[in-house]
């Protein structure tokens, strides 16, 4: 079962170095955190959407749009109840809902959307191995990166095994959709136990297989992929860096932020 969001396209975004893409996505997050006013955040959202278009990542956006919509709606609906303001909203004013709160909620919804889509942009254009390499090259511990990529690889296998487990237990009459909530939760035991058992029985074998292929925690790893920082990488990083610098300056001067009280 393939679980990765990576899309194998030949775009200039895909050709960027893993480090560039990681730093750019951190830049997106930073930009989103600089502002709380929806207008400015919508501008950043347009930038991220442009990145997704350039990366031909529409298929992944389609996959997560329900989730993204839910996240944004929740943020938009909940914040107004916790933000004070001066202009009450008719009907809801008894609950303390104000226009300022609604605007802030909308802004936070857009911020959340920028972050989600930024993550999708990175994962659509970068393989897990490239991410692990980039994180190591950016100073993250190599073994952590390796465990991450190994785990990612195993998620697909376990999800495939999980489907097998569900089918095997359903074939013995297990119906997880019936009963009270407690009963339904209890019914997960026959599903979760074989899956964990299946994984743990492989622990020693997997460790032996890794060392048989030359892996050891103390062995130094040198990456051989061809990814090198090119001129486009530097241009992209400078552009995002400049944007971030300007945004920080604006934030410092209170431009693009809403003055709200909680």
């Amino acid at each position: 079962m393939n679980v990765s969001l990576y899309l194998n396209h030949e775009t200039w975004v895909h050709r960027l170095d893993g480090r560039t893409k990681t730093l750019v996505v951190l830049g997106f997050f930073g930009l989103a955190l600089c502002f709380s006013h929806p207008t400015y955040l919508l501008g950043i959202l347009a930038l991220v959407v442009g990145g997704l278009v350039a990366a031909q990542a529409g298929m992944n956006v389609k996959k997560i749009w329900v989730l993204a919509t839910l996240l944004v709606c929740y943020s938009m609906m909940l914040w107004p109840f916790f933000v004070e303001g001066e202009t009450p909203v008719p009907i809801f004013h008894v609950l303390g809902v104000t226009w300022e709160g609604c605007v802030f909620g909308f802004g936070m919804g857009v911020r959340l959307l920028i972050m989600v889509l930024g993550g999708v942009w990175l994962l659509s254009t970068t393989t897990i191995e490239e991410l692990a390499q980039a994180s190591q090259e950016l100073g993250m511990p190599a073994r952590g990166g390796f465990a991450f990529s190994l785990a990612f690889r195993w998620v697909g296998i376990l999800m495939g095994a999980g489907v097998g487990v569900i089918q095997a237990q359903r074939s013995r009459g297990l119906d997880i959709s019936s009963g009270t909530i407690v009963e339904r939760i209890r019914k997960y035991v026959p599903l979760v136990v074989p899956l964990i058992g299946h994984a743990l029985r492989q622990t020693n074998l997997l460790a032996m297989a890794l060392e048989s292929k030359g892996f050891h925690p103390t062995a130094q790893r040198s990456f051989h992929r061809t990814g090198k920082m090119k001129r486009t990488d530097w241009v992209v990083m400078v552009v995002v860096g400049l944007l971030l610098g300007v945004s920080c300056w604006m934030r410092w001067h209170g431009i693009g932020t809403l003055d709200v009280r909680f």
Partner: protein
Amino acid sequence: MITQFACYDPRRWWADLVSVWQDTRLIVVTAQIAAIYAAILIPFKAGIPLIPGFVELRPANAIPIVASLLFGPAAAWGAGIGNIIGDCFGTLGPASVFGFLGNFLFGYLPYLMWGNLGWLSSGQPPVVQSWRQGFEYGLICVVASSVCAGIIGWGVELLGLLPFVVLAPAIFFNNIVMSLLLGPPLLMFLYPRVQRWHLRYEDIRSSFVAQGNLRLSEKPSFVGHELSPGIADARTHGSLLDCKHLSFYYPGQQNPALNNLSFSIGPGEMVMLLGRSGSGKSTFCYACNGLIPHMIAGELTGSLQVCGENTRVSPVWKRADRVGLVFQDFETQLVGTSMEAELLHPLEYRQPPLSFDDIKRRVSSALSSVGLEPCLDRDPMTMSGGQRQRLVIASVLVQEPQLLILDEPSSDLDPVTRMQLRQTLRQLRDAGMALLMSEQDHDDLQFADRVILLDEGRLVWEGSPDALRRDPHAMRNRGIRPLALTECFEELVCEPLPLTIDEAVACAEKMNLIISPPAAVLDDTIRLGEPASLWGSQMDPFVRIEDACFQYADRPILRNINCFIYPGEFLALLGANGSGKSTCARLLNGLLAPVEGRVLIDGLDTRTTSMNELVKRVGLVFQNPDHQIFADTVWEEVAFGARNLGCSQEEVAGRVHESLVAVGLPVEESAGLDPFSLRKGERQRVAVASILATRPAMLIFDEPTTGLDAEETDRMMAMIRDLNRKGHTIVMITHSMRLVAEHAQRCLLMKDGQIVADGPPREIFQDSALVQTASLEIPLLSQFSQRWGYTLLTVNEVKASLKPNVR
């Protein structure tokens, strides 16, 4: 049994966190916990959203606490990484940092707290068997859940994404409910088993420390991968593998797994290690690249020199450039998410680093050796089983080892893929590589230069493959199935016994014999014990499949399937890997519904009938019994299906008894027998018994003999035949043509999602071209008898049909 518990020393907290990254097994456990956590997050949604998109009631939330109490700091890292992986499916962002931190503590605090709560602690192992343990567990759940919820809630509010007062209570509720409801039963099941498998954090850490001490006390003969001149000399001129009086005992075992083995293997030689399950084949493979003694504990005596170096001297990972090992479960060896990552991974640990040109050459050469297209971006999970296995071999070959060891490489492969593997191995041998291949049947014997037969760890036979193949008595005595063609002439005075069809024909001609089958052969009395005319095709069909089509996403899997299955039939579903056999089986028990057409079981349409009704009629025994076994005892496991159908206690007891007897498992001991302690063949029987307890009229077996040796296969097939005789309709998925020839009354031949032939095996096997189009081959025995115009299926049929030529 749960025997001992030593509580954790809080002063070690930092050292423990660091130690996880110093041992391969702990890194693997970390990755596994992360993968389990993420994998359960996705397909196991309970559909009970608390805050949709943010928090849903999911069984995964019990994993960090359960894993923490078993694997300590590895669980902390695993829970943190697993949460980030979960976020990689759509919600990766700055909040993931707080998600990591919250889950890290959720997975670490329980380990730190258990046994360290003063008078509140139970002083017992972390399982809920008494109220004191329950109290301690509950308290830990509350603290760990609160901390996790607090950190994530605070972080998410800090980012301005959602208010703390909304998110934190929801996360706390989710964590606490799942931990309290699911944690205790999971721990009850897992703790004793993890303890028995020596996988608790304390066990792994202590073995790691012991191994570290062992390594420190050794003086390595060389550094990195540079060889001393003496070793290089041995590599060039001596034998590549040389073992003398090699013995090995697993810890606590009285009988040796390897017993005084002495033999050698030279360059360019292909040696087959043959033997029944448990004969020591895999153990020897593990010894060859140093897994024994470096990663598998036990008592090793004698000497084993591989590539000129004693295997005790340097650790496994430093030998990877000289000795390559392909494991029986080859999927375990796949670590990358693309072909390129898979092939580069072993090379990235070489010291000094290889040049780019050298890497390119090695990758290209390894791929061409195994005949794979260089689609380097392709995800291994999208490849067929055979392709994945060749990729694993290629990932070993990039290291350019001198000795390649393959542990039962063809057990899961269909005949065509096996043939491709043989060709690959022959090419490697011809290129000068030494190969050691372990197998438990004779199918690949003729491709070896030499055979070594192991039994109970001893070398009991060594010589040329042909010499062994012409000695059916020796093979049978050691649990290896003899060649069917040779067996036919065993009782006749024919020297030497034939190995090929031409030899068998020559032998028959020399003895003036012809094939002239009696009526009892042609009406299947000899093969199946009763004439074919007694089968139930005159009755109403039990299963009707009418124009059934099925597809996953846009990919068609089954197209216009039409077939009837009659009560009491023994039907074989044949076809190459990926031909649609397993999907067809899942249509038959209602797990999948056809997208077009319909499937009627006992008159009930599977699209509109509940699973519980269908389960009473059709039972599906999956290929891997471990996908269903979860109970503490065999009795409980077998009772599971009957309980799900709402049977009373007395009824359940009666059904369990009846099912255990039917599969030949001990009834009395079943209440105290742990299913996980059984061998695969026995676990398969437990799986069959648990299906039988639902009393289905029809049983479907998905590859029931995969991974079993000749004796276990015979026992399994005898059981299935017995169930058939007792009235169960049997559908068996297999690519073993021998099993079909010996047991099936009728077979369906599938190719590319369609049924291309339907009829008795004798009729289908007459058309070898048709069988070959489905990537299968008819047995040699049938090909031999076809020289006289008959299609015979079993050794007994040929024996009964060999008559003197009176003309």
